[in-house]
């Protein structure tokens, strides 16, 4: 097993720049997720690592070995394709055995390893079938088993769950996590589903338009998004962003939001008149039914009972935001709620650049 390192990788298709300048380090044994909207270059990045695309510029290392110019078969990787790419003219057994036979592993050893991989993925009863006789979920497991038997240094997966129905996806997701814990393999996993990314990843790289916007542990990405894009892409509901402007107050600059003043706790420089966004997650907003000092009044627009919580859409001045209440909390559209935003839960963003402004370290202000 080994880590993966990318240095300044660039890839274009004609005029389309698929990858701008990607540098990245994946640790040995890590479950690393590439997350981003469709078309942002995730698949292209994975294919560059696999050797299925030739990079325009930059270098790729697996372990300490540079693999930039090597064909896929010399990289010691295995890949699970989004379409699964199970060979239709071979039985399940021969599909899983294919790579080992290419390596001229003795047939007895092939049998042992195929059976072990089939066992791990609950394919024992299906080894004699052709792929056409399998369900989508079974085909997906064949594709994973076929990659696993190779004991690759790095396992690459391109949206392996996206073609499964919702229930099966939930199950398969947990299975993949178990598989990673059992094998300790380095996995690079592509998805556009933020829930999948959060639940599987040791670390997540959020991509946008051929660039990596943020690399962090899932909770860091969730709590402290580096940009407005990340905050809006991760989490359901997405992070709230309320726009306002910096004003000079008696004790330093304050944030002026729809006629209300909120203290700023920032390490970075802000100047009077600068447009800022106050970013906050729905569940971090403190809600009161009655007015109290420092709280902002918000009118309830929509109430959506989601079982575990009530999802509220509310309005402060002209801006809407989402917040959550415990189920059964009496609330109705038109009602006023009093909101306060705990300083430690606020993520300040520059409205123009869309980038986060570092908060002052707790206790330093």
């Amino acid at each position, binding site marked *: 097993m080994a880590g993966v390192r990318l240095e300044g990788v660039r890839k274009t298709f004609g005029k389309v720049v698929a990858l701008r300048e990607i540098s990245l380090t994946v640790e040995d044994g890590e479950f690393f997720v590439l997350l981003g909207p469709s078309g942002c270059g995730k698949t292209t990045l994975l294919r560059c690592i696999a050797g299925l695309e030739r990079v325009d510029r930059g270098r790729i290392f697996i372990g300490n070995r540079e693999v930039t110019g090597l064909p896929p078969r010399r990289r010691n990787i295995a*890949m699970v394709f989004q*379409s699964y*790419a199970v060979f239709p*003219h071979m039985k399940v057994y021969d599909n899983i055995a*294919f790579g080992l036979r*290419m390596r001229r592993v003795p047939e007895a050893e092939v049998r042992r390893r195929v059976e072990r991989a089939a066992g791990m993925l609950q394919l024992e009863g299906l080894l004699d079938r052709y792929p056409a006789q399998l369900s989508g979920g079974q085909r997906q497991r064949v594709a994973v088993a076929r990659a696993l038997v190779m004991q690759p240094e790095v396992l690459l997966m391109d949206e392996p769950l996206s073609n499964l129905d919702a229930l099966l996806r939930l199950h398969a997701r947990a299975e993949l996590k178990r598989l990673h814990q059992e094998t300790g393999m380095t996995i690079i996993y592509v998805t556009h589903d933020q829930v999948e990314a959060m639940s599987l990843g040791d670390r997540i790289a959020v991509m946008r338009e051929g660039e990596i916007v943020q690399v962090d542990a899932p909770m860091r990405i969730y709590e402290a998004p580096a940009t407005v894009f990340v905050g809006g892409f991760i989490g359901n509901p997405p992070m709230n962003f309320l726009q306002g402007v910096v004003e000079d107050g008696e004790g330093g600059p304050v944030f002026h939001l729809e006629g209300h003043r909120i203290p700023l706790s920032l390490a970075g420089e802000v100047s009077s008149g600068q447009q800022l966004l106050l970013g906050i997650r729905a569940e971090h907003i403190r809600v009161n039914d009655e007015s109290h000092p420092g709280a902002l009044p918000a009118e309830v627009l929509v109430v959506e009972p989601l079982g575990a919580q009530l999802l509220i859409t509310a309005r402060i001045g002209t801006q809407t935001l989402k917040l959550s209440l415990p189920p059964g909390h009496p609330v109705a559209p038109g009602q006023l709620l009093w909101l306060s935003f705990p300083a430690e839960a606020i993520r300040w963003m520059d409205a123009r650049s869309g980038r986060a402004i570092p908060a002052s370290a707790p206790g330093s202000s």
Partner: protein
Amino acid sequence: MKGRSWVGDVLWYAGAIALALWVLAPIYLIGLLAFSPRMAVYRWPRPLLPLELSVETMRFFVTATGTLAATWNSIVVALFTMILSLILGAPAGYALARFFFPGREAVRMGILMTRMFPMAILSIPLAVTFIRMGLYDTPWAVALVHTAMALPFVILITASVFTAIPRDLEEAAMTLGCSPLSAFLRISLPLALPGLAAAALFTFVISWNEVFAAAILTLRQRTLPALVITVLNESPLYFRFAGGFFMVAPALVILLIIRRYLFHLWGVSGR
């Protein structure tokens, strides 16, 4: 509503039956007379049911001078055409299916446009060229021309066959230890085999039926259609029926086998 769909059904079936009769009736009559006693063709009214069967007419045709030699020539020409078309056409089809290169659509169009040159205009220069090369009046000359005629079809059929095989499969094989060539040989080729076989049989039929080039480029080494067409006018009627049936039978059998794959061809060229 119900009434209208009933009328529609009747019209649909009536049309289908009329079309089928249009095609099948001549084949049936040819077959019938080919297996009737010689004198049946002169009888009036003609018998329309196979009451009186006989292989006498067919035997006369098959044992006539030149028939067996011409059949052998036809088979040689068709086989050689088939092999050569596939060797040249399948890689071109693969390239059209798998690779993006500048002018790809132009190549695709150009391949079809080669079919626009009428054989009649090409035949004299071709005959002259083949005489110079010493190939005139040999099966090889005919096979070369037939290959040129069949190539557009072979390229388009194989392109559609390879397009239908996902590129992912070869890529997966490459991540599992294959070189591009071995990925092709182990994955795409076996999956393409039925389609390639169809293309091969189709080529065989094109060559087997082709008469114009074969008649011009041969004198003594006639292929079957060339022989039949040259002796037709001097032969008795029953001889013509036997010859017609002998020609049409293999083509019919082969076309029945491959009709499924013809739809692929139209699917591609219609785009």
